[in-house]
């Protein structure tokens, strides 16, 4: 027993060390990449991109479910985006409130026979509407499919543009976000098949008429900690993975894909829990199986602002769902592991996700339990334990402060001194007890999935309309 406890404690130590070292390596890569990206931005004058003669059309797909309070603001925000060839497809996913009615009133929708080819699985479509106020707006009214994937698939069926941008209808895109996200595609449309933008925390910021007026740090601790998490995930994680063409997730809140390829892989898997991760994984699989040269990129400057959970219960549900989504994608992709044909995806990216993402809650919670057990049995080395704690804490803090540094040297959206000081302060406080709670939620998600709960459950959000009140 004592031997097992020793092995477990040492495994936890090495696991933690390796995980943090991997993040440190990513931080270094990300800082270098961001610096290069900043310099390159100077040679991409947005006005030049806007005037590009052959700029490819993009269709934005925004699924909406029971969003009568915020849908009009969201649609206006999306229609106001600065992009010359834009179509907006709003999918009313069986809303039980007046989402469709408010859109009908605001945008003068009339029934049309737009092209709708049901190539991808989706619940029955009740009707298609085009706006008389702005012909770029098409509304697909469908029965509830029980998942965001189902709603997006309906949008994909009505799509005619060569590129599709999938967003959450309650997210706020900065006006030039589409121009910026299209930069890698315009440079090399044959090779670049998808691009992810950065998603940031909207809570606390000031919104007026669907437009972001002023970026502020949220007031609640739980929201600020999520700001650090998002910075770390996007500005370090995704930036670094994309550098090696191993980006496995393009956030469902904001990403651009080549429509033909999304169709080729069958669109979103309608029962997928982590539909965004699932789509990118299948794109990697498809491109590698077809032996096609491709790149999936991440661009850190096109920004999408989204609301994050502001209470522990919602956050717990969200994280449990993310973990379920992870397992839901990794398990069907297990045959890609260590197979030569899947290259670096099979030999590096997926094993990393299995080891340091999927198993992280299992390893950490088991480790904590064994540490407590060892302490109870009197076999825990006090020196080892304190060293482990201090080292883990200091190392993890380096990564968190590194993500704030990334934000500071690149996009610097928090202009207020107070905000930055608070953000830096929270880098020291996020490791206890938030991290342990986070691991517990994730473990809970895994448990639910293994017990057969595969349902996609949307989260309750306040929506854009309420964001004004901040």
């Amino acid at each position, binding site marked *: 027993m004592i031997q097992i406890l020793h092995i477990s404690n040492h495994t936890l130590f090495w696991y933690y060390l390796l995980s943090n070292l991997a993040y440190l390596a990513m931080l270094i890569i990300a800082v270098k990449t961001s610096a290069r990206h900043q310099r*390159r931005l100077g*040679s991409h004058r947005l006005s030049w991109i806007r005037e590009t003669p*052959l700029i490819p059309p993009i269709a934005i797909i925004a699924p909406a479910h029971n969003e009568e309070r915020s849908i009009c603001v969201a649609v206006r925000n999306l229609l106001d985006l600065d992009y010359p060839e834009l179509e907006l497809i709003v999918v009313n996913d069986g809303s039980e409130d007046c989402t469709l009615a408010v859109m009908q009133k605001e945008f003068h929708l009339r029934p049309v026979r737009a092209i709708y080819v049901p190539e991808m699985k989706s619940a029955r479509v009740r009707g298609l509407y085009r706006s008389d106020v702005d012909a770029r707006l098409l509304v697909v009214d469908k029965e509830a499919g029980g998942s965001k994937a189902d709603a997006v698939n309906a949008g994909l069926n009505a799509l005619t543009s060569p590129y599709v941008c999938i967003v959450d209808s309650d997210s706020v895109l900065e006006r030039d976000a589409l121009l910026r996200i299209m930069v890698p595609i315009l440079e090399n449309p044959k090779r670049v098949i998808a691009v992810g933008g950065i998603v940031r925390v909207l809570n606390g910021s000031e919104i007026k008429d669907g437009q972001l007026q002023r970026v502020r740090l949220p007031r609640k601790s739980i929201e600020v900690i999520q700001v650090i998490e998002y910075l770390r995930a996007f500005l370090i994680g995704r930036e670094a993975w994309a550098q090696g063409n191993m980006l496995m997730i393009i956030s469902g809140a904001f990403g651009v894909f080549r429509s033909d390829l999304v169709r080729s892989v069958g669109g979103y898997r309608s029962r997928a829990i982590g539909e965004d991760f699932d789509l990118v994984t299948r794109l990697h699989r498809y491109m590698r199986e077809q032996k096609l040269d491709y790149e999936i990129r991440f661009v850190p400057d096109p920004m999408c602002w989204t609301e994050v959970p502001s209470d522990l219960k919602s956050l717990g549900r969200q994280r449990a769902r993310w973990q379920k989504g992870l397992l839901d994608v990794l398990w069907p992709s297990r045959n890609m592991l260590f197979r030569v044909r899947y290259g670096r995806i099979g030999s590096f990216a997926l094993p990393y996700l299995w080891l340091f993402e999927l198993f992280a809650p299992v390893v950490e919670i088991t480790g904590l339990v064994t540490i407590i057990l060892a302490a109870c049995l009197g076999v825990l080395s006090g020196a080892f334990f304190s060293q482990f704690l201090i080292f883990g804490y200091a190392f993890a803090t*380096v990564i968190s402060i*590194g993500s704030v540094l990334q934000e*500071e040297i690149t996009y610097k959206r928090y202009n207020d001194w107070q905000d930055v000081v608070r953000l*830096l302060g929270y880098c020291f406080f996020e490791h206890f007890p938030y991290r342990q709670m986070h691991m517990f939620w994730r473990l809970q998600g895994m448990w639910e999935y293994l017990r057969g709960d595969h349902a996609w459950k949307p989260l309750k959000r306040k929506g854009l309309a309420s964001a004004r009140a901040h």
Partner: protein
Amino acid sequence: MASIFEKLWNLGPAAFILKAIVAAFIANAMLLAFILFRRAYRKRYFTRRDKRVFELRQNWDALISGKVPYTEWRNKTLDLQIVEAMALDALEASGPEESARLLKFLRNSGLIEKRICEARQFTGWRRLQALVALGCTRAPEGISALAEGLRDGDIEVRLAALRGLGRMASPQAGEEILASVAEMGLCIPALPLQNALIQCTAERPQILLPYIRHAESPFREVLGRVLGEVATPSLGPDLLQFAEDEIDELRAAAARGLSHTKVELALDVLSELGHDPTWFVRLRAIVSLGKLSDRRTIPTLLRGLTDANRLVRFRAAEGLVAFKTEMGPIFAAVIATRDRYGLHAYLTALENAHLRGMLEEELQASTNISEKEKGHLQSVLMTGALPTEDAAMTAEIPEHVAALR
């Protein structure tokens, strides 16, 4: 006596973790200090810059007219950066008169020469900056420096040079791009190249023709695409030679370009291209036929309505809807194709063009068709569905509809 660091270092392998802890804390402290110092420094810098921008803006007219001696600001790095940035931004948004004034200022102050020199001498991102600035100026003397950038080993520099040349939007810049690609091969991604060439050759598309004749695939395809965008009526006969080219892109370009030429010249060729095995060639041909607005195109457009490709069908429908004086007979001809996808496309185009009401009125007022046929057409318009096979067999095709087919 050994320092604290030496003591730590000499603790041996057992103290590795201790060293790591110290290193991590030092890293934390350094990161924090860097962030805070950088913030403070930048705040000071931008305050200074804002103040200087305001002062320079007050004297802007005197500055660009040369009343303020150039040496007064050229020798100060901050001023130089501000003035150049302000001048380039103004140039981007200015009309021809103001552009000429600003360009004169940039020339007289030596800023263009400075950027030309930097574009030639520097490497990496500083060369990038110089190339972009030259592109912003649209000064013809910058073309050769930009063209040299096209031959750089770094793709970023080549793309910046290409964008700069595209911004020039002059045939000379176009010639430089074409010569460079013809010499070095397609070392730039196709889309930015096409965009730059479209901007540069729009004024004189003839410069593309010799390259198209001699270029090989895939450069030839790129040129074909560009030609399709910039073709003018004056190119009519030259375009005809590409209508039978083996490269799909060139046939598509010919189809696209022919929409700008005389109907007599284009009609037969476009009708032929409307049967092309490649869908996007058919699409271009159908779009061009639609643009010709000649009733002789109706039979081909009707055939396009039954095409296997949905985009071709939709474009054919848009072309047919444009014939507002013959909506009734065309609608009858669409039904007579017995193609429900074609009918769907036609009704969609009709609704998108807000012409459904007009067709209803025309059917109501028409005296050329029998009451029975009128009811039949109205029923299809209302339901959007083709009549049953039996009804269609019994309904004879009227003469005016048969003539359209």
